[in-house]
């Protein structure tokens, strides 16, 4: 990783963190109609994977997709306006926090159904292969989704057809209220890849250099036509499943212990240690991101809601009967 990339990754992680914390605050004061699923503590995964992607590479993500959207290049203002249900959001308020799209930067959808995105990403991979392109498709999903039939069908097909799909399992230890220990009989989800004849690797999802390196290798393989990879990134879901989740199914001590491994702290310390940045550089960057997010929040807050009639624009099927 050269200096530019290292700093760019730090900036992305800060941007995501500050955006998510800002949204948490906005939810508390009633500016968001329904609880968002926030990405605090998992930023290294989105940043590390997406730093390897070109704009024309594609990703599909989940209900917890804000970080991936930002890491792929979505402006925080458009993302936040969407969460706030405004017409200036990336989907004009139609998709909302769980369903974000921007195909111009390769965000082909964040999908609200657990498991829903993996087959879609596999299809993106098929189209890439049939069109003889060297793009890749990335499928982000969680530990919970790795127990879903869609995971198994998708990996099987992607491996069988040698599709350029990177399956990224964000093992944040919880699927809503159920811990991975209580849902999954294996420790490393990555071993499932072997069952589908494809490589699988587990990395520390809070160490962005590990994520970055695993992604680089998988993406290089995929671009060469050598097929898919499963990358399991172990992390921790710092917040509840959704904003407003009292998360009584885990202890405060467990959450506090997890904060010790904060991915931004790790990367900041690493970049100071290797002389890439100074403490002052970090503070300046952090302030700059604060400013960016404050402006984005103001934009979201001041934007209008969509007009009610807009609800029926694009309604599918165009029924001829008056409804």
């Amino acid at each position, binding site marked *: 990783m050269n200096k530019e990339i290292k700093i760019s990754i730090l900036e992305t992680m800060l941007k995501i963190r500050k955006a998510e914390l800002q949204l948490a605050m906005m939810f508390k004061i009633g500016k968001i109609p329904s609880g968002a699923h926030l990405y605090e503590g998992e930023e290294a995964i989105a940043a590390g994977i997406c730093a390897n992607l070109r704009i024309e590479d*594609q990703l*599909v993500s989940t209900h917890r997709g804000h970080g991936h959207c930002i890491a792929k290049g979505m402006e925080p203002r458009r993302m936040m306006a969407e969460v706030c249900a405004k017409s200036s959001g990336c*989907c*004009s308020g*139609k*998709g*909302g926090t769980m*369903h974000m*799209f*921007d*195909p*111009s930067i390769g965000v*082909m*959808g964040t*999908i*609200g*159904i657990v*498991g*829903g995105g*993996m*087959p*879609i*990403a*596999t*299809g*993106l*991979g*098929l*189209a*890439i292969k*049939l*069109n003889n392109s060297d793009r890749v*498709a990335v499928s982000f999903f969680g530990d919970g989704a790795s127990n879903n*039939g*869609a995971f198994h*069908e*998708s990996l*099987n*097909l992607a491996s*069988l057809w040698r599709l350029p799909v990177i399956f990224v399992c964000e093992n944040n230890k919880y699927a809503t209220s159920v811990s991975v220990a209580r849902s999954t009989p294996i420790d490393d989800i990555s071993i499932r890849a072997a069952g589908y004849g494809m490589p699988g690797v587990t990395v520390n999802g809070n160490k962005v250099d590990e994520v970055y390196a695993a992604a680089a290798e998988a993406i290089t393989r995929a671009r060469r036509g050598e097929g898919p990879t499963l990358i399991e990134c172990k992390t921790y879901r710092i917040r509840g499943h959704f904003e407003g989740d009292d998360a009584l199914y885990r202890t405060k001590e467990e959450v506090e212990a997890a904060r010790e491994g904060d991915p931004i702290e790790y990367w900041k310390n690493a970049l100071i240690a290797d002389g890439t940045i100074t403490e002052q550089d970090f503070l300046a960057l952090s302030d700059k991101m604060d400013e960016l997010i404050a402006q984005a929040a103001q934009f979201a807050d001041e934007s209008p809601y969509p007009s009610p009639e807009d609800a029926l624009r*694009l*309604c*599918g*099927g*165009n*029924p*001829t*009967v*008056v409804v």
Partner: protein
Amino acid sequence: MPTRRIRFVEALREGMRQEMERDASVFVMGEGVGPHGSCFKQTDGFCAEFGEDRCRDTPISELAIAGVAVGAALAGMRPIADLMWIDFTMLATDQICNQAAKLRYMSDGQVSVPAVFRASTGRLKSNAAQHSGSWYSWYVNMPGLKVVVPSTPYDAKGLIISAIRDNDPVVYLEHKMLLNVKGEVPEEPYTIPLGVAEVKKEGSDLTIVATGYEVIESLKAAAMVEGDGISVEIVDPRTLMPYDSDTILESVKKTGRLLVVDEGFRYCGYGSEIISMVVERGMDILKDRPRQLTTRHSTIPFSPPLEEFILPNPTKIADEIRAMMGKSTEAGVLA
């Protein structure tokens, strides 16, 4: 256009083949569609002509078959996902109903899903409970999906071409009892617009709205009641969603009587929609209460006498027509 008599399955095959020749982004995938040519030979010869990339076999992974179609469609291709039996589409329901149907709307039009989900539908002798379904009303009910059920070879070809060219997801259902039915079909490609019904038989006393194979069964019943002096008009919606309410209302205005014959089940079935639409919009044109004749509300049994008891047939349809015309004392609609 010169026409010739070919079978429904040949017309369907020809429509797909001609579109694949015209548009390189069209491809088919499903269990057995490759060298085997599909379970009912819908893709016979496709591998030889298009290769296994564009006519590809899949594992038995209905959810992934449908989901891969969604993804490929998002990327600008026009996939035809063959799910074999409408009963198996249940395994793919998330991708058809939560994904394909909704992505264009949720994205505010930034993406679209020009995929066709094809399956066989309906009875075939003693195919029993899990292979005889007609669940298309479920898909009619899902905003974002178009649903097509052709009843003739001519309709089969025109509608598959339109379905493939449509930029929204289309569920296309080919009835098993129709596959070997012959009809006049133009050699050239042609389209039948989605959302346009066809009057399959003109009449003056009673309107039947029938779907799929029940169009054929209703035509037989109409011939049976001619001897009673009853003239039946048969309207085939062809596209079940969006459907052509104007043609249906025009017919009911002419006859004053409506019988819907549908192989699905009556509860929240397609017949229920047609009747409720006519009552909501045409109460004053009805001379008598509308009725529907459907498969009885039961799991479909295996043994032929049991299966016959459950399903509609021309005799039951004719009895219903006569009852509605006051020409018999038979009981009315059975549920």
